[in-house]
């Protein structure tokens, strides 16, 4: 997030796009509910009738995969009606002319046609978002998990900059991080292109810093493989060995069959985890690890707040801390630089090599976590980014044109399938499905289908159906409602027995390599 969670209380309008906040980030969702009650405007741009749609000022059910067109349409109206923050655009941004040229084509009529909404919705949403002094864009995987996810994100940023909604309280472009430490994993350089704090591996100076800090030579300067491209490389035979620490690609990655082929094609697969998963089942070595309750360390929340995790009990049996296991492997490889006495010692090293984490010593974040950038021990942390100036100086408009998703419904597979999560389960379900109350709430895999489609196909609520795509087929219980529009299906990927990712498409965004989870073509029929 560029801003803080508390900014929800300081904003005049939220454009919520591709986030089911009350279910996926409940305590952010509840803040939105409260803000609406106190008069904040809420625009929900989401195909599904999510909880927040019921209390929103506008619920725009745009077709999945048309976010770029929708956002361009809003900007078209904002420019045309003189609702942009001209001063901000002039002093703080660049490349406005290109943006203007591209969004020019997105008239309300054309936008409405692409998004399957009405021109009035485009106009009204543009006016509502641009009206208040401060407005926020809040988004989640509904924006990013597309074959043009990067374009979606850029378009959100364009809209925010165009209206002067970056760099102050109650504004910003705010992706909600879906896992407790996605932010931290990115910050820590668990990414193929950067070290900690987004220091680029292609940058020689950065490499030199880390070579010195780690006492090694010749750190590689090429950008590595992402999770999704690594699986492809495993299928191709390029990748020979994979070390998986606390991930379950068999459940979380697109096109399960493809993932399985890749993992089986490896010479060597190591999986370190807390529970057996479909991924550990394929491993050559399984290493038992400690879970969050059994370790010390830090997590970084979606608002960039670095907070302590503390050990409450011992790991079961012979399970060990991830960092100790990693250190032992390094030692066996003849490297002592990964031998630590405690997570605190690791954090001290992180603070030395990571400018944005420079002041994140354990004694400082003991009671209340701090938000990065926090360069030194005296710095109070940063509630919102880009105040006064962007990191690169001027904010760059990166306009995009609408591109359709890679696989759209057709005659054979007439439904548009999107995947996501439900309130009671988390990610691949390894933890929540072993939590009594949560497991009781959602025990069976389900697929949401519209009433009209269900009626036409003779499908009843809670009856078993088969959902299939070009990649595979799973059995789930029908959940018949108006949450999805006719022609759409929605499934969660929590259930091993009906892995939604057996169905999903391995189409990736060309830059971010994020899979297109929100659109693929599917078919549904009654299970016999």
């Amino acid at each position, binding site marked *: 997030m560029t801003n803080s969670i508390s900014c929800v209380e300081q904003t005049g309008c939220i454009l919520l796009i591709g986030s089911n906040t009350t279910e996926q980030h409940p305590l952010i969702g509840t803040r939105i509910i409260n803000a609406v009650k106190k008069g904040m405007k809420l625009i929900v741009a989401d195909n599904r009738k999510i909880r927040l749609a019921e*209390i929103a000022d506008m619920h725009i059910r745009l077709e999945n995969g048309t976010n770029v067109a929708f956002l361009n349409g809003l900007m078209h109206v904002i420019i045309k009606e003189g609702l942009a923050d001209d001063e901000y655009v002039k002093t703080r941004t660049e490349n406005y002319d290109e943006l203007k040229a591209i969004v020019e084509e997105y008239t309300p009529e054309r936008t409405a046609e692409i998004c399957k909404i009405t021109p009035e919705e485009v106009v009204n949403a543009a006016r509502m978002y641009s009206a208040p002094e401060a407005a926020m864009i809040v988004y989640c995987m509904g924006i990013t998990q597309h074959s043009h996810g990067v374009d979606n994100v850029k378009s959100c940023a364009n809209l925010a900059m165009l209206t002067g909604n970056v760099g102050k309280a109650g504004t910003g472009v705010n992706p909600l991080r879906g896992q407790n430490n996605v932010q931290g994993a990115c910050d820590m350089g668990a990414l193929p292109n950067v070290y900690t704090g987004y220091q680029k591996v292609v940058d020689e100076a950065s490499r030199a810093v880390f070579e010195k800090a780690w006492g090694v030579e010749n750190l590689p300067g090429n950008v590595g493989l992402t999770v999704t491209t690594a699986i492809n490389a495993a299928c191709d035979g390029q990748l020979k060995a994979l070390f998986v620490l606390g991930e379950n690609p068999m459940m979380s990655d697109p096109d399960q069959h493809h993932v399985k082929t890749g993992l089986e094609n490896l010479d060597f697969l190591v999986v370190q985890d807390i529970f057996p998963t479909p991924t550990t089942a394929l491993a050559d070595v399984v290493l038992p690890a400690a879970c969050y309750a059994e370790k010390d360390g830090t997590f970084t929340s979606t608002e960039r707040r670095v907070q302590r995790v503390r050990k409450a009990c011992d790991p079961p049996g012979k399970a060990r801390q991830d960092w100790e296991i990693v250190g032992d492997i390094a030692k066996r490889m003849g490297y002592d630089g990964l031998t630590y006495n405690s997570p605190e010692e690791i954090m001290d090293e992180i603070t030395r090599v990571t400018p944005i984490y420079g002041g994140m010593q354990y004694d400082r974040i003991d009671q209340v976590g701090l938000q990065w950038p926090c360069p030194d021990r005296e710095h109070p942390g940063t509630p919102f980014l880009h105040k006064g100036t962007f990191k690169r100086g001027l904010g760059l408009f990166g306009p995009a044109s609408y591109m359709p998703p890679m696989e759209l419904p057709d005659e054979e597979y007439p439904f548009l399938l999107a995947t996501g999560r439900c309130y009671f389960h988390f990610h691949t379900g390894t933890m929540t499905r072993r939590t009594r109350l949560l497991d009781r709430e959602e025990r069976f895999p389900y697929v949401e289908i519209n009433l009209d489609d269900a009626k036409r196909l003779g499908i009843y609520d809670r009856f078993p159906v088969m959902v299939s795509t070009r990649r595979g087929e799973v059995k789930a219980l029908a959940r018949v409602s108006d949450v999805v529009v006719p022609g759409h299906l929605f499934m969660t990927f929590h259930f091993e027995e009906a892995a939604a990712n057996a169905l999903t498409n391995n189409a990736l965004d060309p830059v971010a390599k994020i899979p297109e989870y929100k659109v693929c073509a599917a078919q549904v029929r009654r299970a016999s």
Partner: protein
Amino acid sequence: MKRAKTEELKTFFESLSDKYDLRVPVKLHDGTRVLGSLSEGEFAIEGGKIPQKPTSVFFPQFDEMFVVTDGDVAMAKPPAKPIMVVGMTAEDLDCLEFIDKFFAENFRDNIYYNKRDGSVVVGVSGRCGKDGEFMKIAGGKCDIELISDGECFIVHPYTDKGEGLVEKLQADECGCGGVHMEALRKESDALPKEDEETVDKASELIRQGKVTDEFWDEIATRCIACTSCNLACPTCTCFEVYDRERDGKMVRQRIWDSCQLDGFMREASGHNPSGKQLQRTRRRIHHKLAADVERWGHRTCMLCGRCDEVCPTEIGIKSVCREIVKRFS
């Protein structure tokens, strides 16, 4: 009656920690006040009610019912040391009185009474609430009540067990002959009764059938089923039971459950008498303010306010009652 300073009370409770499993108000590391042992944090008798439900010392979030070893069932046993809980407010003591009755009636719940039997309950009241606010005096329902006059606590035993313990307290006798206590009582009686009146009025309106389904539906759209209201409520007693293996033995366990969950009443057939959010929201409040009046002769919301504080969307019982009174009376 004795008069004791905070420090003297702390020393007193410390001296009892050999004999009792002490649960006293302490301030933890980040400032959160809980009922814990004196080793966990700073003794914090002042500051009002504890955010967590104090009845959890006898009915905790997780409990073992029995352990099975080679087919032999060993029921849970009473704790090694009796529990002494300090810091219950007058409202908390009302709650405790009710759940004592609830767990005893018809069938006596021995998992609860394992902990409750032999326990010592110490109330706290007077001028030691949050920001020095005056807290209602219970005047009973506990073994000892600590009543603050702003400087010291008047230590008032109500039971034989309480008297026996107070004898061991190293503190001065209260020399005023009860005059002091009388003044505090008057102050307690004069506390505003708005909440009570609102909730009673709402209870009446609900029982008269005046509160519509449309209203419950509207409240329900704000509920995200976080279950905090139930888990923070000292008179909520619902639990889920399940079996789980531990060290090769089967353990039957129970955990706090919530009527705000869809699965709470869902039957194996799929039939669900509370399958709609509206029904669940209505139940949460109807149960305390109407159904329990029918069953027990009184409402079972004791106005402690915890659900209001912990509800992220401001639909705790008091807030909803204010809304009911506004709209339906």
